[in-house]
């Protein structure tokens, strides 16, 4: 078999690496039990790592959101002052910040998935370790050396495979958080400098031009919208619409109160 046989070999290689010591079967039992506990610690560390990275991204997302609001305010001010060029610039930056924000959102969701996966792995491993511990005591107490050896190797390989698999899950989560960390560092710098540029811009030329055109179009559309809003007072027809949404507020407040009560 192609991929299946290669993955199987890969996991089994990891497994024998995990359990490559201890020739005496009884010693093997204790040794693999200790390795399992270590592995459980690794999973827990992995979860902490993922949660920390996720928090950091969430913080960045909040800061990007602030930037978006600030740039939006600046665009309004600039336009009110008759500086359409500055308003356009602010809106362009706002678009970029929003693109970054969406990218972060996807990554936050990715990390949440990793967290869930590792948490499931942790629970699974905890149960398996407990099974192994019980079986270990039974084997030690009840079986003669030769018979014990067979039973030990069954339990040990079954568990070794589980450990190798959990190890793989941790590795993958670590690779993902490492990649995100590098990217998060770059965004930190950009946010701090107040200029958010498109650091994801790796697509081919056509992609980039297309996204430039669409971002340019939305900047112009937003500019036109702002202009219309600023012109608002002279055109009172549009105003009643805004106040009509306020009548639905009481229901919304109840929901908010319920939220804080939890």
């Amino acid at each position, binding site marked *: *078999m192609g*991929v299946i046989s290669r*993955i199987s070999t*890969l996991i089994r290689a*990891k497994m024998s690496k995990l359990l490559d010591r201890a020739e005496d079967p009884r010693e093997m039992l204790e040794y693999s039990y200790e390795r399992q506990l270590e592995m459980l610690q690794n999973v827990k560390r992995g979860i902490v790592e993922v949660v920390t990275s996720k928090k950091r991204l969430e913080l960045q997302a909040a800061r990007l959101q602030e930037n978006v609001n600030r740039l939006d305010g600046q665009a309004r001010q600039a336009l009110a002052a008759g500086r359409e060029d500055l308003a356009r610039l602010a809106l362009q930056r706002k678009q970029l910040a929003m693109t970054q924000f969406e990218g972060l959102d996807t990554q936050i969701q990715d990390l949440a998935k990793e967290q869930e996966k590792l948490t499931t792995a942790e629970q699974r491993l905890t149960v398996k370790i407990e099974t192994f511990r019980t079986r270990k005591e039974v084997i030690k107490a009840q079986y003669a050396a030769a018979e014990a050896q067979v039973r030990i190797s069954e339990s040990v390989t079954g*568990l070794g*495979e589980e450990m190798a698999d959990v190890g793989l899950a941790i590795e*993958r989560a670590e690779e993902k958080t490492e990649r995100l960390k590098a990217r998060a560092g770059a965004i930190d710098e950009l946010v701090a400098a107040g200029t958010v540029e498109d650091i994801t811009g790796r697509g081919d030329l056509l992609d980039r031009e297309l996204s430039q055109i669409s971002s340019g179009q939305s900047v112009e559309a937003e500019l036109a919208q702002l202009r219309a809003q600023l012109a608002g007072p002279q055109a009172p027809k549009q105003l009643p619409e805004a106040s009509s949404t306020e009548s639905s507020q009481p229901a919304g407040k109840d929901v908010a109160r319920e939220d804080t009560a939890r």
Partner: protein
Amino acid sequence: MIVRIATEGQYELSSALLDRLNELDNSLVQTVAGGDQTAFARALSEMLALVRIQGKPVATEELVTSDLILPAPDTTLDEARTLFVGDGLIRG
């Protein structure tokens, strides 16, 4: 037979499905060779779906060795490709 989906868990699957699994594995290899990310993802999820739908999850308290181990659900084409390069097998 016992089949494991890497990073997900073990399933007990009828041995009668081995041939079908073999077929799906062969087409997966072809998508790796072809370098088409979408086709690879489709072939992989088809293979995993067979195990998830036809198989019965092995209870968490069980300690059994798998007869076959399938790639993790989020395996990328690049990762699959490294499996076919010399050092891919002994990494880690």
